[in-house]
């Protein structure tokens, strides 16, 4: 059975169709480097200021200027902010892609295009509006070389009129966008106004899409995940950051530098942090480990290729037991892959990163808010368990703008783990670095520089005994490895717990993590509304899995693990962890096209697998 037979089209209005309020997806097709990012942000923010929930997703090439780029704004009254598969309103600014962009639209969609492109000849089942951008831009922008950049702001004015976005909100958003550049603000405002005025005088509204004022964004902020992570790390007391630029993680550290310069300069005018751009990812993680060993809260941010390069050092930190925080802003692999597209493809390789028996704690933020809070979780866990902790974000979360409630001020004190001071050593006399005193697998460490003759221990990646002495003895090696494993088992009850949506009593269970969350929430509603299928949804927030994840699999006949990779990586980790007889319950829904996962695809695939 074709699922399209029963699925109603969402808001793809036919001419004369009933108006659609606050439920649409707007796609702007432009050329990379043409200043369209500012225009897109202004339009996004204008709708946000109208009180309508929004999301903005930038689909861009790995290029500085000249290649096509698309920006999709979704406005949705119900708060669905996952990517929507269908485009309702296309703003076609790029001659290279315009024809294909128009051909791929569903009937009834609206197209706003640059007049010379003549796109209205292509199809008769769409609603076309044309705007002579070059004629409009000349009078408002006397400097010819700036016209290319200002031109894009004209469409914002046109769209504002067509969708009935309050022009005052456009001006407010625009002035915020260019807050530090008065001349640019005035120039762009004139362009937006010219577009608006043109639309008022020349365009007759024929599409059904409208933005109406709501109150669903009151008090909320707009921020990207990388900036949120940077803030989280700053408030978590991070002191050493060493990094190597790589898309899509670079902006995390770059934003952090800006914030740290403003908020982390001590009363003596000196920095309470050090941020160093390393020569490569190997050096970046090596410095993190050196700093962690010497007692700093240290971190790096990278993406898949960097994770691969960090493998050897990660094994060292795991075995020497040094805290480290690594942000993996995942992009599409293998190899260079699609550097500017999103994925959840580093789950398996990170879980077991490095040779020998290794496994690592991973956290999976789903939102900008969790990028902020999990930063502290990551540092606390790394120092508590004296081990590397990976925060698995992705490009969609890291580089796109998301709306959020303001971040709460951290309510937990910073915990530095089991570190012995000079005074402790005076009482104890001596200590054994890798002895399991407390039964949790975690030993006590001292920091270099501790002023006591018994403070020193020898950190080494080679075999060692409880006292950190070189040892090749089979019993020493085995005991040590089992103790390190005990730390991992202990971590199960320390990592962030999963989050359940639903009664917990449905037959169908869904498991997902990270940014897939937003599509799952919407898919659960689609399943209920369209198929009368109730599904419980458990959002995994950490690896190792906590008890609740096991319980969830035990309580559901069919468990769909939804993820953005080819090989069902999280499902594979889950199958390794659950009882053998439960393995057959686990099914996988995987997406690997590099675009953020959408609800409709999940719903369709799940219903197909349900055989309905």
């Amino acid at each position: 059975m074709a699922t399209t037979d029963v699925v109603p089209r969402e808001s793809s209005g036919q001419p004369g169709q009933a108006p659609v309020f606050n439920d649409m997806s707007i796609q702007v097709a432009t050329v990379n480097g043409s200043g369209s990012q500012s225009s897109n942000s202004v339009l996004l923010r204008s709708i946000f200021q109208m009180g309508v929930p929004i999301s903005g997703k930038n689909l861009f090439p790995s290029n500085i200027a000249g290649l096509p780029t698309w920006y999709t704004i979704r406005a949705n009254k119900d708060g669905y902010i996952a990517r929507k598969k269908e485009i309702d309103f296309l703003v076609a600014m790029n001659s290279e892609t315009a024809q294909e962009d128009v051909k791929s639209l569903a009937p009834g969609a609206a197209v706003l295009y640059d007049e010379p492109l003549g796109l209205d000849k292509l199809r008769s089942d769409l609603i076309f509006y044309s705007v002579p951008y070059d004629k409009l831009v000349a009078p408002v922008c006397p400097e010819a070389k700036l016209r290319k950049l200002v031109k894009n702001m004209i469409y914002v004015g046109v769209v504002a009129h067509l969708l009935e976005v309050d022009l005052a909100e456009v001006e407010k958003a625009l002035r915020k966008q260019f807050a530090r550049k008065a001349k640019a603000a005035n120039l762009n405002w004139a362009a937006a106004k010219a577009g608006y005025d043109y639309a008022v005088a020349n365009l007759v509204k024929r599409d059904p899409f409208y933005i109406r004022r709501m109150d669903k964004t009151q008090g909320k902020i707009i921020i990207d995940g990388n900036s949120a992570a940077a803030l989280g790390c700053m408030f978590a007391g991070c002191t050493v950051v060493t990094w190597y630029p790589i898309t899509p993680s670079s902006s995390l550290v770059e934003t952090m530098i800006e914030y740290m310069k403003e908020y982390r300069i001590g009363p003596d005018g000196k920095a309470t942090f050090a941020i160093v751009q390393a020569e490569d990812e190997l050096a970046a993680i090596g410095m993190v480990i050196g700093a962690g060993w010497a007692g700093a809260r240290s971190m790096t941010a990278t993406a898949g290729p960097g994770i691969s390069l960090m493998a050897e050092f990660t094994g060292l930190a795991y075995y020497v037991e040094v805290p480290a925080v690594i942000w993996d802003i995942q992009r599409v692999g293998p190899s260079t892959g699609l550097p500017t597209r999103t994925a959840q493809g580093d789950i398996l390789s990170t879980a077991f990163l490095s040779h020998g028996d290794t496994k690592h704690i991973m956290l999976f933020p789903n939102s900008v808010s969790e990028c902020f809070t999990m930063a502290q979780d990551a540092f606390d866990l790394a120092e508590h368990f004296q081990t590397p902790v990976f925060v698995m974000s992705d490009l969609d979360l890291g580089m796109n703008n998301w709306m959020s409630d303001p971040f709460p001020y951290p309510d937990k004190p910073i915990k530095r783990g089991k570190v012995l001071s000079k005074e402790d050593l005076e009482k104890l006399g001596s200590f054994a670095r890798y002895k399991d005193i407390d039964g949790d697998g975690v030993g006590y460490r001292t920091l270099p520089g501790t002023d006591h003759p018994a403070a020193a221990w020898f950190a080494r990646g080679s075999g060692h005994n409880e006292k950190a002495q070189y040892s090749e003895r089979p019993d020493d090696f085995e005991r040590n490895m089992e103790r390190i494993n005990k730390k991992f088992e202990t971590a199960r009850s320390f990592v962030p717990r999963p989050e359940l949506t639903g009664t917990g009593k449905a037959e169908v269970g869904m498991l997902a993590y990270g940014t897939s969350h937003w599509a799952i929430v919407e898919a659960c509603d689609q399943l209920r509304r369209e198929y009368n299928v109730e599904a419980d949804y458990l959002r995994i927030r950490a690896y190792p899995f906590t008890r609740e994840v096991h319980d969830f699999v035990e309580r559901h006949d069919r468990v769909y693990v939804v993820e953005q990779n080819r090989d069902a990586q999280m499902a594979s980790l889950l199958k390794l962890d659950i009882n053998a007889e439960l393995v057959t319950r686990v099914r996988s829904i995987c997406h690997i096209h590099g675009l953020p996962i959408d609800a409709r695809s999940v719903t369709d695939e799940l219903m197909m697998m349900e055989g309905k």
Partner: protein
Amino acid sequence: MATTPTSTPPPKVNRIGLQVVDYRGGKTTLCAGCGHNAISERIIDAMYEMGVKPERVAKFSGIGCSSKSPAYFMNRSHSFNSVHGRMPAVATGAMLANKDLIALGVTGDGDTVSIGAGQFVHLMRRNLPIIYVLEDNGCYGLTKGQFSATADIGSTLKTGIANDLPPIDTCALAIQLGATFVGRSFSGDKKQLHSMLKAAIAHKGTVMLDVVSPCVTFNDHEGSTKSYKYMQAHEEPLHDINFVPAFEEINVDYDPGTTFEVTMHDGSRLRLRKLEEAYDPTDKINAVRRLMESHAKGDVLTGVFYINAQAPSFIDMLNVTDEPLATLPESAVRPGREALDAIMEELR
């Protein structure tokens, strides 16, 4: 009681009251006669004589015979035996965390010049405060004697195979890259190495010491240019080195005509008595030229080739607060509630 005079003299101690035994380490597991063991001994002596508190020293190494040696000296110092070729990164991170540490890196020619060439290059250009001792024997000892990238053209393995690739001169490289104290010595030249290590302790910045350290098992034969015999015949010292620490009275004047004096950052004096006319160790270009000339003749030039005692170190340039970053209290590293409020307001 206990007032009875004894015949045994009180143990000899240094200026901070420690005996030389307080600077010793575990028993070496390297081959008898290995140059590396002699270098460990010189490190112990230099640290003892300079009165360095062992607890302030952090030892770093990579992988290889040389990198094992930090276990054989200074047991009271923390140590990090890391991964192959990547000790510089670990040392850099540790110094970022705690700038009060005295970093001592021990590495080999395989660890530094091949797998670690990238990290070596960037360590030198940062001028991180570290004493970087490169124990150079021209071969991979721990994997049984393959050529390293410091082996000279034409030098042979024990099997007779000749090396046909040019050597990398780590000193010329370090000078060009920005290290601020660059020298070469020989593990068998006790006096020179001892003085150079003491001066190294007084320096604030990257000290790169390439120490030719023969591998008695795999590279001490006829045909090797890193053997004891070759070094005894071809070592060409630039100057006699005398180091006067800041805490010692200077009671001997020197003749500027025959001796070049460098005042170190802490006030110590490094005196280089010229064995050849007009060698100026602050002239980078001449230093590299002189190194190349010597090498072309088949000689091994030793001494302090280049020094800049005043250059800012990497830590200076970062302008970090006086207290070590590692142990700053929460009040110093977590901005207040009002900071977060202001940031949130900006994002609304």
